[in-house]
């Protein structure tokens, strides 16, 4: 291989409450990873984690972005939103914990498994959040 490292960068918008478009950003991310020939196992992990993070913006926040960075060694997904923020991150990470309203639970969301899924799919996950400002989640996925 030559010494130029192929890298790519994409940014997609996500709107809070827009269930009809929810998942489109993650779907774009997945298609890009398929086009660059990323391996199936890492695509699955990124797709699941990215979808959960995108859904959290749709369900819990007002507006946000999904940012994809990828090079030969790793894939980084950052999901950044303007919204209520997460007051107690440790509590939010507890499997089954959810503040989702009933209308969203009826759709099969709000099982409180999103953050735990994201954690188990990624190699590293960092959450930064400020109350009434927003939340930024950064996930790193390493090629096996």
């Amino acid at each position, binding site marked *: 291989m030559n010494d130029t490292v192929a890298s790519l960068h994409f940014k997609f918008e996500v709107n809070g409450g827009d*269930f*009809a478009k*929810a*998942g*489109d950003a*993650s*779907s774009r991310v*997945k298609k890009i990873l398929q086009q660059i020939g990323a391996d*199936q196992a890492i695509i*699955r992990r990124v*797709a*699941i984690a990215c*979808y*959960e993070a995108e*859904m959290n913006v749709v369900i819990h926040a007002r507006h946000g972005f999904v940012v994809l960075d990828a090079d030969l060694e790793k894939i980084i997904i950052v999901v950044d939103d303007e919204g209520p923020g997460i007051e107690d991150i440790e509590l939010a990470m507890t499997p089954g914990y959810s503040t989702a309203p009933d209308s969203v639970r009826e*759709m*099969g*969301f709000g*099982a*409180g*498994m*999103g953050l735990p*899924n994201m954690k*188990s799919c990624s190699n590293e996950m960092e959450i930064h959040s400020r109350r009434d400002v927003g939340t930024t989640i950064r996930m790193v996925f390493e090629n096996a």
Partner: protein
Amino acid sequence: MLLANIAQNLNLNPINEPSADVEVTSGYASDLLSDVLAKAKNGAIWATNQKHINIIGVAVMLNLAGVIIAGGIEPDENTVAKAREENIPLYITETSLFDVAGKLYELGLRST
């Protein structure tokens, strides 16, 4: 097992069937989307009582072989449109979710 065999065996009503010549490698039944995302295998057929557009998004993320809406529930209009756009096989049936899962199991499919 081919999707065509499953559709025929369970007498499923195709809403979108770009091709039934698709290999189905496992099955899953759940109404919780995070549960499906975490546990359903790529290539699974997924039976559910959910009918909204996001079930197609989940199927796309996991490369599912298809989605069955059980219990005589009609999909939302935009669910059907999205299934067509994304080429996701979508079926409906009057059979209950319990019986659909049982029949898939009887055909030899497992969730793992």
